[in-house]
Structures are given as C-alpha cells and as structure tokens.
C-alpha cells in the first residue's frame, strides 16, 4: 500500500484503532471505522496529528461525511488520511471533503492525485477545500459590475 501524503507525516507513524485510542486519548494518531462516531474525537482534536478514515469499499461513502465533519464543524487541522478503497476516480471528491493524505494500491494513483485538483475548475457547492462555489463567484461578479 503506497502512501501519498501532502502533510508529511512518515508512513510509520502509528495510529491506534478507535477502541484502543479511547483508552489512551492522549495518543496523537487514531484510525476510525466508518461507523465510529467522529464526534467523540472533539475534546482531543488539538492534540491529534493524524486521523485515518476508512473506505471499506470505494462505493461506501460514509467516510466523506466523517471527513467533512472533522475538517469543517470540528475544525481539525492535522493530517486526514483516507485508506481502504481509495481510487483515483474518487480522489477529487476526497480532496474536497478535506482529506490530504491517501493510502492506495492503485497503479497511477500518484499522477492522478497531482491532476485531481485541476480536474474541475468549477464547483457548485461549498465543501472543505478552498474552491469557491459558482453561486458565490456569480454574486461577486455582479456586485463588482454594479459598483
């Protein structure tokens, strides 16, 4: 399994499975199943440097919601890693949901990751990345035109 990380933590950084981590919540790295409640991490987010979320199959999309909650509402700023069914055709969605590191077995994944940020220059909805939704860009344009 190759690691593609923009955050730079080494691959050997040990993450505890959620049940074990709950007994040692000061540990700065945890891995969650996609049925584990991300809300439980809230009091410890300042200490956490790595959270790993799992896609048991690439078609099981629960970790997208977990990622958005962690990045968005809960304000997590450490490394957020996707593992499991991680394929290049979904990586653009993963980036938008706030993942910044990926474990994938797929050949060509690294190249696809590099291209993924420029695959879509227009997005319609806000997410956890810095792409501005079309509706906002339109408003900015019409405000600028009006002034």
């Amino acid at each position, binding site marked *: 399994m190759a690691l593609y990380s923009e955050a730079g933590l080494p691959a050997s950084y040990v993450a505890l499975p959620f049940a074990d981590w709950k007994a040692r919540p000061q540990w700065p790295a945890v891995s969650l199943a996609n049925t584990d409640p991300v809300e439980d991490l809230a009091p410890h987010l300042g200490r956490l440097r790595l959270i790993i979320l799992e896609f048991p199959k690439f078609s099981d*999309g629960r970790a*997208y*919601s977990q990622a958005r909650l962690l990045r968005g509402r809960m304000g997590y700023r450490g490394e957020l890693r996707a593992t499991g069914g991680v394929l290049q*055709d979904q990586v653009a969605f993963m980036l938008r949901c706030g993942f910044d590191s990926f474990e994938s077995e797929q050949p060509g994944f690294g190249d696809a990751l590099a291209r993924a940020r420029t695959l*879509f220059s227009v*997005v319609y*909805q806000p997410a956890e990345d810095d792409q501005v939704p*079309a509706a906002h860009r*339109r408003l900015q344009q019409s405000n600028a035109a009006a002034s």
Partner: protein
Amino acid sequence: MPDTHFYRYDDYDRTLVAERVEQFRDQVRRRLAGELTEEQFKPLRLHNGLYLQLHAYMLRIAIPYGTLSSRQLRKLADISRKFDRGYGHFTTRQNLQLNWIRLEDAPDALAALAEVDMHAMQTSGNCIRNVTADHYAGAAIDEIEDPRIWAEIVRQWSTLHPEFTFLPRKFKIAITGSPNDRAAVRVHDIGLRLWRNPQGEVGFEVIVGGGLGRTPMIGKTLREFLPRDELLAYLEATLRVYNRYGRRDNLYKARIKILVHEVGVEKMREEVEAEYAATRDGALRLPVGTIEAIARQFAPPDLPPRPAISGPVEAQRSSDPDFALWLKSNVAPHRVPGYAIVTASLKPAGSPPGDASATQMEGIADIAEAYSQAELRVSHEQNLILPHVAVEDLPRVYRSLAALGFAEANVGKITDIIACPGLDYCALANARSIPVAQRISTHFASLARQHDIGDLKIKISGCINACGHHHVGHIGILGVDRNGVELYQISLGGDVDFGRTALGTILGPAVTADKVVETVDAIVATYLDAREDGERFVDTYRRIGAQPFKEQVYGPL
C-alpha cells in the same frame, strides 16, 4: 443560445459540463484499455447515465425539472439518429432514454448534449438524481410559486457533491409549487411542497421517506414549514444523516424510507434538526441575490393578450367530435386568460407508451417554437407538454400534433398508460410491460368509450422496482415471473393526484398475459355498473371496495 424562460447556462455551468465530459472520456478510454475493472468503472458510467441493459447500453439523459427548449429537443432528435436507432423514451422521472448507445460513442454523445447545455450526470447510481417538478410549472393556474427555481438551486447543489456521491442508494427529490401535487412528492425520498403560511410567508413542507419499489411507502412530514433560503442547509443535513446511518448491508433496505421506518420519523427529525442546527447559518444559506438571479430566469414569458374565447375554436368544438374530446382531455387552463396548457399524448393506441421517433421530436419542437414560446415539458406520465399555447392557436396545434400522431384525446384516460420499458429492454425485469400496454390501449381505443369511462390511470411495471409506478395506479399492473411464465398481478385504488397519495391493493391471484385485457374489461364493467353521478373509477372503488371487482374478475367466491 437563444433566450429561454427557464435557467440559462452561463460559462460556469458550461465549463463544469465540459470538464465532466473530458473526465468521462478518459475513464472510458481507460476502461477499454483494461486499466479499470468493470467493478471500478460501473459507478463511473452510472454517474454519467449509462446503464447496461439486455441488448445494449442505455443512456438516460437528464431533463432538469422536465423542461427543455425546442432547440434542445431538436438536438436530442439528432443525437438519437447519430448515436442510437432514431427514437427515445420519455420516463417517469422526466428524463429521456436512448436504448442502443455504444460505450465507445458515449463521450461523443455527451459532448453533443453539452452543445445545447444538456448532460446525463447523476441520472443513475447511488447519488442524488434528477430533481423533478410539476410539469405545469410556471403556467398552472393554481401555482403558489414556480418550483423549478428551487429545482435548479437543488440541481446545482447536488451536482458532483463530493460528500453525497456514494450514498447507500439512489436519492430522488421532487418539488411541487401547487397544492395540486402533479409531481408525486409523497412517493419520493424527499418531497418538497411550497405553501404559504398564515403569516403570508412562502416556505417548504419537507416530506421524507416516500418511495415505491419492493416496500412502497408514503412519505412523512419531516418539517412542516422551512423558510426557502434555508433549503440547502436542511437538505444537506438530511443527506448527511442518510449517508451516515442509511443501511448498507442489504441493497433492498438501503433507501432512506427504510431508515425512517426503522428509527421512526421523530428520531429522524431529531437527528436532522440537530445536524441542521449546526449547518443552517453556514455557507449554504442562500443569499437573496442568488435566489433572485435564478428566479429571474424563470420569469414567465410576456404573453401578449389574446381572447379567452375563440370563435373558430368553438366552431370546431361543435363540428369535430374528436377535437371536442381533445379540448376536454388534453387541454388545461393557463394562469393567463387567453392561453392554455396542451398535453401532447405520446400514447397513441397500440404504440409503446412514451416513445417518440427523431422525426416526431423534431416535429413537436417546431410546434413548440411556433406556438409555445419554444418551450416544452416532460410529464412524469410520459407525455410532452406545450405550456403556453394561445387558445386561438389550438386548432392549428391540434392539426400539427395530429400529423405527428400525438393528438389522441386520451390524456388521463384508460389508454394514457404509464409503462416501464420492461423485459423487452431491461435487465432487471421479470416480465414484459410494453406489449401489455399495447394490447390494452388497442382494446380501449374508441375515444367516445374512453371519455365515458373517464379518468382512469393504468400503470404497468415489469418488476418490483416499480419504474412504472404501478403502486399508485388506479389500476396497477405488476409483471412477475412464475416458473418461466409471465404473470400479471393487478392492484386497484392507487393514487397520486390532487394532493392524494394512496397505494393500491392487490385484487387477487396474478393472471396470464392473454387474460390481462379481459381482466381490465371486467374491472371497467364493474365500475360502470356501480358508479354514481360524476364518480371517477377510483372514487367508485373507494366507495364500494374491492369485493365487487374481485367477483367480476375471478367469479363469485
């Protein structure tokens, strides 16, 4: 692109569609080169509308809220000729299906669609599907607000939504802007009903967990009144709860209706409202400027005053019985006096319901351009609508539609059958539905008889997935397979009109294909014998119950 009276793409929309086409082109290339397995590729092609059916790939083209321009319809005709076999099928979700697409041609077909600001994004797969709306929107006499404004807002929010592309199952949203729900909102995953509260504010009733298929359910009210500008935040909350907690262990228990059923609507509401409380004041709150910019695009066309009564129309009404019947069944009142809403019936007797050839599509596009502000609608009953026809123009429109074979005076009548493609096309089907529809419509072809029978909706599905909406047919017919023999299960009393939603009840044992017509005959005869003044079929059924029908169909018990 000429001005339309509905949403017009700008460079942002066009760029997104173009980038999507290029992404899919590359995915097809990789699949054909063996770089992607079918398992990896299947959701990608489904998310671009491409199903693998019995004979070939089927492309389901999105027609957002069932609205399209003459120019767009002409392009669909062109695409059906260039990439398919010269015809298409209008569906119960206001989309168009082409049945013989080659995978290697699909990217070019999508590129052709993009030329007229159309696409096939998310018309399949476990994602948010085409948002459907009242096919009379913007023209209906009873409309509170045009639901398509909101359908377009939801369309954009849901397109390539990074969090909701791999839901437990498909997700279907329908919106009505009128108390007479013509969008079947109570049998959708989410139904939205615009209404005006006692304070005079317009907002949404949010209905959740409706659906047909294996476990048909009528949706429950999640939120009585939701202010309009909070719509996206509320939908995002609902979808997030569904994405997190919807079942993924069993394909047949994965829709949101099952989640609502299993946890109860109160618990569902609690979860959604808690999630919504956290999202409501964020980036999804719709600025007034955004809503207004989109609403402006749906501003009704400037319809010049025309006389409400036309001498020639009245003259033809008296002299031409077929035209008189057509006026009764296929023409509905318009909010602007002097205008009317015309339904082109795609159900000529003996024909596959909802199908149109490329030539017919071009023909009706021309009629729309000349007489209906170059705009058409697709109804979820598989007909086409000309929404803005001047009353004075009705004779010309009738004549032009008749030349295409689309002027049969049967809208809402017994031969206005809704049928899924069935086993002739569909890999999921257990039995054929189109030949059954053809036999029924041929048998009841007489217009006078149809109008005597009155409003009676037959809906036929070839399998339990219920794409023919048989559960909500006045007469519902479900094709089943028993030991290799096609059998048809009849249900009565379903409904989805006039704000009333009801699921049909099975009448008795399934009948063989050759007995379907005489079964329907017996049911109709029972109704005609028992009906009291002005009762429609479904009203008589509700009054007298199933027993008299059972006896007529199966013999005295």
